[in-house]
């Protein structure tokens, strides 16, 4: 068992080392990514100012608290650019080019391979900017978090990340059946921008949608509340449960998809 873990660990390191090597050939990318992240952040802050108006409030959230939500969104967006997008959008090209066969024949779990094979450093500016924004807002928050509160907040952040991964994986995995809808993950990316703002800023009907259908609430609002020290037990438990269920869901989904692939491909 330990041997296997070591092998997977070594494999992950070699995946990301080769991936970085291929990407770092283009240094101009770093400048552009930095500018893009900063530009987007500046624009989002501007819009937040406009929305908050003279009262400085959005959906009952103070300006500072709303910044935490924006920071978490930027962090998750950076995570998407680092890991989710470079890996999962390749599933469709694997299916189209027949190279999925090679992945299936390696003595490594195929879901692990497809999810972690590449690492794009270009998402890192987003990750750093997000963390910086969160840190800044928390410092200005005044209330300090207890160690337990911090742990919960981190757990909820991780849960949010896992839910995001599951959504991406589900949509990207559909290319095993339908190659023509490869851009479903793009739709996801464009709809998740709703996570920029606290969920209470939306009308009640949409709030329901953003909890049950497209769990944006669990991605940004719930971890933000935990970071601000106002985590509610119900939401926290719901988030953790959702993360666990969606992770198991991806596993079952992938096994189902592989069964289809291996009986249908010629």
């Amino acid at each position, binding site marked *: 068992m330990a041997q296997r873990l070591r092998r997977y660990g070594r494999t992950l390191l*070699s995946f990301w080392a080769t991936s970085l090597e291929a990407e770092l050939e283009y240094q101009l990318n770093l400048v552009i990514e930095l500018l893009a992240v900063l530009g987007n952040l500046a624009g989002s802050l501007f819009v937040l100012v406009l929305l908050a108006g003279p009262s400085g409030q959005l959906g009952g959230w103070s300006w500072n608290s709303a910044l935490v939500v924006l920071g978490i969104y930027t962090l998750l967006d950076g995570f998407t650019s680092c890991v989710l997008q470079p890996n999962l959008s390749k599933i469709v090209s694997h299916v189209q080019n027949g190279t999925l066969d090679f992945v299936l024949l*390696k003595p490594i779990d195929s879901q692990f391979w497809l999810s972690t094979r590449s690492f794009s450093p270009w998402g890192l500016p987003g990750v750093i900017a997000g963390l910086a924004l969160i840190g800044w807002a928390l410092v200005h928050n005044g209330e300090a978090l207890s160690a337990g509160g911090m742990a919960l907040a981190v757990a909820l952040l991780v849960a949010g990340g896992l839910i995001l991964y599951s959504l991406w994986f589900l949509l990207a995995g559909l290319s095993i059946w339908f190659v023509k809808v490869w851009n479903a993950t793009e739709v996801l990316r464009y709809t998740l921008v709703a996570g920029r703002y606290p969920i209470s800023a939306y009308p009640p009907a949409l709030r329901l949608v953003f909890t049950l259908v497209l769990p944006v609430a669990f991605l940004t609002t719930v971890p933000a509340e935990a970071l601000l020290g106002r985590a509610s037990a119900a939401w926290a438990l719901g988030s953790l449960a959702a993360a666990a269920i969606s992770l198991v869901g991806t596993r079952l989904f992938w096994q189902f998809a592989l069964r289809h692939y291996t*009986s249908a491909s010629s």
Partner: protein
Amino acid sequence: MSQPIVHAEGLSKSFRVADKQPGLAGTMRHLLRRSYREVEAVRDLRFAIQPGEIVGFLGPNGAGKTTTLKMLSGLIHPSAGRVEVAGCLPQRRQERFLQQITLVMGNRQQLIWDLPPLDSLRVNAAVYGIDPTEAKRRIHELAEMLELGEELQRPVRKLSLGQRMKAELLAALLHQPSVLFLDEPTLGLDVNAQARVRDFLADYNRRTGATVLLTSHYMGDITALCERVLLIHQGRLFHDGSLDALTSRLAPCREVRLELRQVHPREAFEGFGTIEVHQGHQVRLVIPREQLTQQVGLLLSRFEVVDLEVSDPPIEELIGGLFRQQG
């Protein structure tokens, strides 16, 4: 006889294909009521391969060779029948099965396009759990056998097709599999590169005793490497044996080419066999095997023969003829 390393029994595979007519009308109809038809790719295959053999799968496009190979490697589930490779059920794709096999496809590659092969090799070493020093030693050994040197440090996209294929083989053999599945490995290579790859495979088989299952269109691959041939035609196993046996079976006749000192009329040759060519001093006859010695003797005594050649019709023609008549 020892345990076969590859064993197939009643192996069959059929695909359900959606029957869709082209055009907008066809799309609408397909949307409302789907119709499917069953395409039988492979029917009732039965064979056993011993460790260390080099076996060739022959057949025209669409015969089911690649489907069979994919069933043996576990990429496709059989519709019926049973297959066992190295003591495992391939479709379970267990780790110890995957450590023992390798698949190389001539029309696709697994090496990272933008990076030198060495980087892909490093990844493979990690994936298969090969110790770095041991990996280095194996790379060195295989590179020598494949005549690869500084190519390993150039990005894959900058290598020629032949070099790329050799690098693919290196990556595929790094973990020392005991069963090699090769699907059209010499596809698109020039004559020299083809010869090199064949030599390497024969050498590798001699040194390591690995079992090699090979599909190819090029007869050259088969004749150079395979003592045993499995001919798949329309999904069924038509022949399982040596190439010579196949030739005898397909062509109970041999071709005799004569160059004569004088010109003789066509009728003079009619009793000896089927006349294929009668042109001036050149005559080509097709004579059944059993009568060969007798007829050749008669020809030599009756005519003044400057040159005589006895040969098999090319195996490609024989196989092509077989597929044409039944296909």
